[in-house]
């Protein structure tokens, strides 16, 4: 009698756990489905831009006088001016984009790292959350506000330079605005990286007679380097892709030859895409999609290179060399098998 009861219990329990496992596995598949949808949106956007961006090179646009134009492929790569009439060259836009980003990083990286270090390691205990909240708030300010700030404060300051400027609108102003915009992002991520540094490492360093500065540089920053680098990647992405604020302060100079001097006005890929978009039509509108392709490619390339560098930085390396798709397949195939057998069993029972 007792044995029978136990047996029943076990069967009962087994059923209960099977059902739990089933929900787990189904939820997992649902998440996979959602992830696939999100990923396919990205792919869809890229395809859309590609399709629209190739159009100016192949479609015939009629101008007022009955002429017909296309974007000239050769000039697209070689012209030093950016024009919206089919003869523009994006080479200098690309260079200016990279140059502006680089200048902004030269400012934002050290400032962010030292701010983060200060907040985590040096700030008085009470002040810490206050400063941290400030940085968090800064990172949520919309870019148009940074743009206005650039127009109202940074440009007039640049204008004071002893050389002739374009009312302070310049590559330097854009870099400064970009730096201001990316500092909160890089700082926040760096703060998290620095806070995650093993306390016992810090204690060991100090117990070995290292000064605070030595500990911060050699242990804290060293241990947090890959996390900080992740912040830098985000900052780079933000700087490369920012349009509004840049467009407001860079001067939108279609002639690219002056790009080497940061005090000259310039034009980036994003500002060329944005400036005058309201009045644009025909080829002048569609060619912006072509710039979009260039921008996407550049951002993808740079962030993936930086990610490779970051992965090299991580101490722990995964040796697994099987392809991602295979891994995902393996990850889910057992779930599908489980669910199938579960329902098979169930149907069999029901039909009995």
């Amino acid at each position: 009698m007792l044995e029978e009861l136990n047996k029943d219990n076990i069967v009962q329990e087994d059923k209960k756990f099977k059902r739990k496992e089933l929900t787990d596995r189904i939820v997992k598949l649902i998440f996979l489905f959602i992830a696939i949808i999100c990923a396919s949106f990205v792919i869809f956007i890229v395809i859309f831009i590609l399709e629209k961006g190739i159009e100016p090179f192949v479609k015939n646009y009629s101008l007022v006088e009955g002429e017909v134009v296309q974007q000239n492929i050769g000039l697209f790569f070689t012209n030093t001016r950016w024009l919206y009439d089919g003869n523009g060259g994006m080479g200098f836009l690309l260079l200016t984009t990279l140059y502006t980003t680089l200048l902004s990083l030269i400012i934002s990286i050290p400032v962010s790292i030292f701010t983060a270090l200060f907040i985590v390691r040096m700030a008085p205990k009470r002040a810490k959350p206050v400063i941290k909240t400030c940085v968090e708030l800064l990172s949520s300010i919309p870019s148009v506000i940074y743009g206005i700030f650039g127009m109202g404060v940074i440009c007039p300051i640049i204008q004071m330079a002893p050389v002739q400027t374009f009312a302070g609108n310049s590559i330097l102003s854009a870099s400064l605005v970009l730096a201001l915009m990316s500092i909160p992002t890089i700082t926040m991520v760096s703060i998290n990286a620095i806070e995650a540094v093993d306390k016992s490492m810090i204690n060991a360093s100090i117990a070995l007679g290292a000064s605070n500065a030595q500990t911060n540089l050699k242990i804290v920053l060293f241990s947090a380097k890959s996390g900080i680098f992740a912040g830098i990647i985000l900052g780079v992405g933000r700087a490369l892709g920012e349009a509004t604020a840049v467009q407001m302060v860079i001067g939108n100079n279609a002639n690219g030859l002056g790009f080497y001097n940061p005090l000259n006005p310039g034009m980036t890929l994003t500002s060329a895409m944005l400036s005058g978009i309201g009045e644009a039509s025909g080829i002048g509108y569609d060619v912006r999609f072509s710039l979009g392709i260039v921008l996407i490619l550049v951002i993808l390339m740079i962030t993936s290179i930086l990610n490779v560098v970051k992965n090299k930085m991580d101490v722990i390396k995964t040796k697994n060399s099987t392809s991602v798709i295979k891994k995902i397949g393996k990850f889910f195939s057992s779930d599908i098998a489980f669910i199938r057998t579960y329902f098979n069993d169930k149907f069999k029972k029901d039909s009995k």
Partner: protein
Amino acid sequence: MIEFENEQTNVEQKVDNSANTLLDKEEFKNPENIAFSCRNVDLYYDYGEKHSLKNINIDILKNKVTAFIGPSGCGKSTLLRCFDRMNDLIDGCKVTGDIKYMGQDINEINTIYLRTKVGMVFQQPNPFPMSIRNNICYGPRCQGIKNKDTLNKIVEQSLKDSALYDEVSDRLDASGLSLSGGQQQRLCIARTIAMSPDVILMDEPTSALDPIATLKIEELIKELKKKYTIIIVTHNMQQAARISDYTAFFMLGELVEFNETEEFFAHPRDKRSEDYITGRFG
């Protein structure tokens, strides 16, 4: 009402064990022999809320192994951290009383200098995520030693002193984290020795290790005491009996008894020590 009064008197009762903790022996009379001396040391955590060390009086002899034992939470680690002023890093921690190192008030010694002279080995092995070589060079480099030959000599010597040389001499550039737990702990000892300190503080250095690794570290400590003054916190009374010359027994923040190890275990003078040794509590 009566209970309340009792509490009052309890609080006011001043702990005074100095009769049991300051030894009336020849070695302790000569100030030259004494590495650390504590007089009326009190320590408070959490801005005075937690009274964690109560009126500690103790002398630590040079070139001897002194063991700190006692139940968990009695303040062994806390007192150990007083000696290289690691408590300074803890917010809201306050130390009162006199602690002298080589006859000099430790608050008047430059902390960085003090920490180069008083090394510390932690409970959990914590090598830096760098190569074995760089782990050992870290301290000397922080003191400005840059010469490669000097550094190489330091690496070799400290690895030999910490009985790790044979195991790692062929892979000095491997990560310190690639070693086993016991090896990591010896690397941490090597890292401390590389500073050529006078004193080594060890906070339960073997608690994360298996018996064989523990034995190795114990052998090492016996070797090291020829050159260094060692203070070791341990939960293991056999270990204290095996390796130490003097033993200090703590309870609830008090130093209950301090004596030569043999005498302490053979004839504990305090009832609480006796209970602890015989395993009646703790």
